[in-house]
């Protein structure tokens, strides 16, 4: 892709702008689809229909919703800290958007082919916490402050088990570059990391259970990092009334939502790359190629997003101390044990 653009328009600034803008276009389109899918899935689970009026089965409703939010009055509370209040949603969005730079969208497209790709993503997503703290503090609302403090505690706590789960995969693959990681998993479903990657059959049998545990650890902590039920404690509609987002309206509120959905896809995409082959086709050499690879990547990512939606509309919410318990006393020890086990297996 980059090569193609370079031959087309030369190594100019425009080239870089296009490369940077593509994920943004993807996020916007994906958010519309994800909102529609979420509403429809939730509705069908709950024995109702959801949108039915705007377009065929309401497919145009997300666009209508977006237009509605654009028109809304953008209020800023009188007692709010204006600068930080305005800045906060954009910082949150930048945190999620920046992660897309290192996601391998296909065998020939990646925003930036970093050799420390996954490490970069883990680091840059922490920026979200700063934005949330800014939003909660500058709103000058006690409920928002509660939400922000809960969010900060939660996201920081869950980064540890998720980082360890990532470390386990990186140990097997021997690379932090997500493009190389995906390329290593081509050649059929048996080469996916969750099935032990390209290790020998003997080692695979020992590694598979460890990888399954690591996947669960990663997936649970990623759910917590994107603040979705059962870990939506910072937003907690019935307790905190949307937490740090309470005072936001109009476009700023929409940006928070966009960031949340972007983050949701980012963590699902990382799980895809780490455990399910990234853009690699599940059928050995069939259905490969640049376009197919993009299809596989997005499809796998969306599948994990759907699992997340399914869980969200099924489970109740944990309490804040129970959330910490899950992170520190369940997930982190398991992740540690798995990394230790993987280390021993690899040395053996």
């Amino acid at each position, binding site marked *: 892709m980059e090569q193609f653009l370079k031959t087309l328009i030369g190594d100019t600034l425009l080239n870089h702008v296009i490369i940077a803008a593509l994920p943004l276009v993807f996020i916007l389109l994906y958010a519309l689809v994800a909102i529609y899918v979420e509403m429809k899935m*939730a509705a069908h*689970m*709950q*024995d*109702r229909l959801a949108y039915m009026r705007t377009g065929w089965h309401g497919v145009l409703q997300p666009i209508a919703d977006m237009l509605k939010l654009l028109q809304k009055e953008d209020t800023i509370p009188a007692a709010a800290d204006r600068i930080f209040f305005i800045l906060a949603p954009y910082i949150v969005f930048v945190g999620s958007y920046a992660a897309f730079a290192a996601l391998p969208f296909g065998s020939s497209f990646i925003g930036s082919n970093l050799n420390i790709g996954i490490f970069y993503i883990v680091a840059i997503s922490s920026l979200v916490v700063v934005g949330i703290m800014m939003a909660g503090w500058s709103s000058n609302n*006690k*409920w928002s402050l*509660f939400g922000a403090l809960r969010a900060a505690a939660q996201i920081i706590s869950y980064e540890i088990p998720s980082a360890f789960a990532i470390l386990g995969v990186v140990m097997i693959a021997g690379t932090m570059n997500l493009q190389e990681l995906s390329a290593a998993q081509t050649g059929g479903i048996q080469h996916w990391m969750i099935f032990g990657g390209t290790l020998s059959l003997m080692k695979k049998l020992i590694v598979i259970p460890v990888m399954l545990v690591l996947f669960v650890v990663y997936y649970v902590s990623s759910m917590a990092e994107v603040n979705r*039920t*059962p870990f*939506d*404690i910072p937003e*907690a*509609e*019935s*307790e905190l*009334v949307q937490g740090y987002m309470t005072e936001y309206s109009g476009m700023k509120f929409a940006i928070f939502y966009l960031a949340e959905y972007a983050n949701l896809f980012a963590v699902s995409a990382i799980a895809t790359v780490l455990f399910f082959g990234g853009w690699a086709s599940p059928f050995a050499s069939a259905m490969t190629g640049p376009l197919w690879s993009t299809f596989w990547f997005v499809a796998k990512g969306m599948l994990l997003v759907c699992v997340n939606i399914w869980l969200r*509309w*099924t*489970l*109740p*919410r*944990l*309490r*804040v*101390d*129970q959330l910490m318990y899950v992170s520190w006393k369940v997930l982190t020890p398991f992740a540690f044990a798995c990394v230790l086990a993987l280390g021993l297996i690899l040395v053996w």
Partner: protein
Amino acid sequence: MSEAIIAPPISSTGRSLRTEEMIINMGPQHPSTHGVLRLELIVDGEIVVDVVPHIGYLHRCFEKHCEHMTNYQQVIPYVDRMDYVCSMNNEFAYVVAAERLLKIQVPERVEYIRVIMAELQRIASHLIAVGTYGIDIGAFTPFLYCFRDREMILDLFEMTCGARLLYNYMWIGGLSHDIPVEFVPKAKEFCGYFRKQLRDFNDLLTYNEIFVKRTANVGLLPADVAVNFACSGPMLRGSGVNWDLRRDDPYSVYHKFDWDIAVGKGEVGPVGSCWDRHIVRMAEMEQSIRIVEQALEQIPEGDVQSAIPKRIRPNPGEVYARTESPRGELGFYIVSDGTGTPYRIKARSPGFVNLSVINEISRGSMIADLVAIIGSIDIVLGEVDR
């Protein structure tokens, strides 16, 4: 439950940093206060140090209004609007009181239909209670399942009297309409269907690991405290006290049916937790189904309006009648001065009394627990404030 007092952190200069408790208003516009209840919380971080409930936002002078009606029958629509999620039970309590004052014996068929309606309404009311409780805990889906099933009960009511929420159905001495022919088969069909739904609901919410973790061990209400605060209904039975006015202060024809009183047993934690109150409601729905099924089988023939008095003018005197509403002991105290207008009507509403215990059971819990506690009390502000 965590300790409410945490040692203040020490700064680098050796002096301790100043920490203070925060006063925060929960409501009147808050999704978990089930209406316009305002709770003044004093919190230390996430821990609730004290709760002061402020009520009265929905006060509509129900009792004063009743004194200015032209007759006793006109009070019934007002009674409907007291606890708007279980109007039938409110009417039931009022007509029982008025009939005792007038010494009217109503026909057997009327009593049976009243019991059927009251028990169906109890199921509808409990469905809202457990459904919204799910939302309080963060599970949205069970709520819609509850509303789907409640809809069927409302359809039965609509079939009978045309109204879906505020019925004006039970009149002093009779009923506004007899049940239509297709009511009995439809109601039987609902009973069979609903049994299965209850099992599914228990699988989805009641025994969900997260739900149990959130509600067992939270908001513990010991039996003696419950009795001292005059709690009633599922609030009292959740604490293990076997007390139900349908059996202990019999009215209507409840003594003719075979049913059990659901009591909290502490299946997943100490007795008297929020989970116990929830399971009592679940079990009561099952028992209500049993009562409805038996009543539908035994219902006698008759005229439902034969005993309605032409002119209601009770002898001077007073009466207190109490019934078991879905929320607890709902009583009406009526004083008559011999005219056609009630001299004084006082409602003893269970929600108001049950709410008074909130301070006692939520001190030292977390904010999220407080939401669980309010939900488990199952208040309807229309009835708390009247």
